[in-house]
């Protein structure tokens, strides 16, 4: 295999997940405090 096929991009890089914290956004979830993280995990989807 060529070097291009063997090269590895993005090892250890996670996905960015943006969620609304209250009325505003704050970037990705890893910046949320513990309570807000727990709240985001508990959120259920609302059917239309």
């Amino acid at each position, binding site marked *: 295999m060529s070097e*291009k096929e063997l090269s590895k991009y993005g090892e250890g890089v996670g996905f960015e997940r943006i969620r609304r914290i209250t009325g505003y956004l704050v970037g990705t979830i890893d910046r949320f405090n513990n309570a807000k993280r727990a709240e985001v995990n508990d959120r259920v989807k609302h059917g239309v």
Partner: protein
Amino acid sequence: MIVTVKKRDGREMPFNIEKISAAIEKAFRASGELDEQIKASQDQLNLLGNDDVLSSTALQVAASAVGLLEAEGKVKPEIEEIQDAVEKALTEGGYADTAKSYILYRAERTRIREVNTRLMHTLRDITFSSAKESDLKRENANIDGDTAMGTMLKYGSESAKHFYTMMMLKPEHSRAHSEGDIHIHDLDFYSLTMTCCQIDLKKLFKGGFNTGHGHLREPKDIRSYAALAAIAIQSNQNDQHGGQSIPNFDYAMADGVRITYRKAYLSNLVKALILFTGKEEEEILPVVKKLHSEMAEMGMVATLVPNEKFQDAEARELSKVYDTEMVMKAQKFAEKQAYEETDKTTFQAMEAFVHNLNSMHSRAGAQTPFSSINYGMCTEPEARMVMRNLLLTTDEGLGGGETAIFPIQIFRVKEGISLNPGDPNYDLFKLACKVSAKRLFPNFSFQDAPYNLQYYKPGHPETEISYMGCRTRVIGNNYDPTREISFGRGNLSFTSINLPRIAIKMKSVDLFFKELDRMLQLVSDQLMERFAVQSRRKVKNFPFLMGQGVWIDSEKLGWEDTVGEVIKHGTLSIGFIGLAETLVALTGKHHGESEASQELGLKIIGHMREFCDKESKRLGLNFSLLATPAEGLSGRFVRMDKKKFGIIPGVTDRDYYTNSFHVPVYYKISAFKKLSLEAPYHALTNAGHISYVELDGDPTQNLDAFEKIVHHMAKVGIGYGSINHPVDRDPVCGFVGVIGDCCPRCGRSEGHAISEAKIEELRKLYPGMPAFKGIR
């Protein structure tokens, strides 16, 4: 025989009786119990000096304390044991008052020592732990606690909080705050600033302004309008502890588009005339310039949507010099070109604006300004061009396709303007829905909600409803009912009540309301205390907010004047969190589950609003009720209540209290029902509110449903709302959308790598793909 003592930190030190007697002397001085004896000794010119009476008595008491210790067989007494013995010796010696002041002195020392220890612990936590492990550093997610400036800000903030708690707050307020009955928000800025402001850009731009670091001239095209708008937000951010908002983004930016178009039209007309007539620029330019400025004086200018009055007059005048047919052709060319150029420039201006607000620094680099913009009501073509391009650039995202965090965009919805097909801004509303379905912004505010509509006067943008992105709302004005506007006003400070705790403690509804009243009064008093501190601040303390006339009426004040009078236009807000948990504690069910609970919920929040109205009347100020955003607070109250009352199912069994009046996030309910239940609380919380629902999947695939929800919000009387959905991004391939375990574009799973060959292959399919800068 006592030779050593054991200090609090465990070290052993040589015993020194004079240290004990010195403390006792202080207690005697404080109690005044020996004063008469000292006086007598002075009067009689007794051989013993007055100090000697004091020190000899103190030494005697110290000696008997030591005697007591030795009698108990203590060889290496601890500090606390010595102090106990001194108390006893003083009482036994008949010095009751001195014993009392000694106890007080001891308690005070203990308090200071504890606070100092706590402060040191806090500072150590800030210094040595990363944001990943320190919840404290993630208290406010918009501040990067890992950076040098973020850490410095945190040192200042935590130290200031300790200082105000000990030295400035009334003890009852300080206690209520530290025990978690109430939460005084932004305590670190207690003596310094007010919360936020709605900046009227039109007023600010007139004649230019000074940032405190230099004067900026009145802007002359849409690019500089947008650049100065960002600078205004940045400058004002440093004078306040909350966010900054622009209430009239559409109206203000429209002025910039007008000027840009006029310039573009002139330059294109000249170009066309050069081409058609074969004459030189030096000849044509002065003729056209002179004509335009003469016409402008008569109120005739080139406009984005061409107006006949200008066109005809211009054609008539130019035809005197040039061939009529050529002139008409040149006009056509100039109109088309100028429109396209203006549109393009406006897009670039909006793109730069969004980029600026996501990259420019405030607060010594610890965060970007907390910015919001309101728009949607202006139907002028220039304003529409601004809004369309702003939405388009928001849709595109930042450089790497990332979702912009700022500004918080708030699209005003109104029947007859934007809500329904046929409305002049309906196309923009549709576009706003589409962009929000991808980027979470804009949020939507509802001008027709009765409590917003009551202030609205068509043709007066200052009476349109404006929200600070977080949810704060300022419009009614009890202090000056002739100024019920949003421009130049904002919140002064707010304090939230721990509602669930009252319910847990009181158990019955009747007692609940009694205790709630006590708490409301306590918060009102605390807000007034802080207001008095804020009132003493001077214009010079707020060089931009007050010095540049951003805050309402501040332009009438001098540099050394206090701001007490003008800040009466601001609001003092009482907030709350955890209505759902409160209802569970009182009735066993929250308002999503039971109609009776909903009724009680409305009674509680209605009661709080009545209290605010009553206080406004009584004090001639603006008290208002806030559905607190509670980012940092969501965990604080429940942590304390868990410790105090244990785990109570549905009340303290989670790591957070539910936001304000929301139906709990974990409760299964339809989007429509949730919004219908929450809307009546919007009417009551006049200091601000927001409701949101969570949509499953990718709403860009179902824009009809998205729009239907916004319509439902309008119908049921929501004031400010938004729709949540997952916005994920893979930084490696740049995909934005919903990502489950695998990225739908490049197929990698979290943390896994893809090859360069794969990236090249993808780039052929997605030419706009950002270059990933990570290490291989």
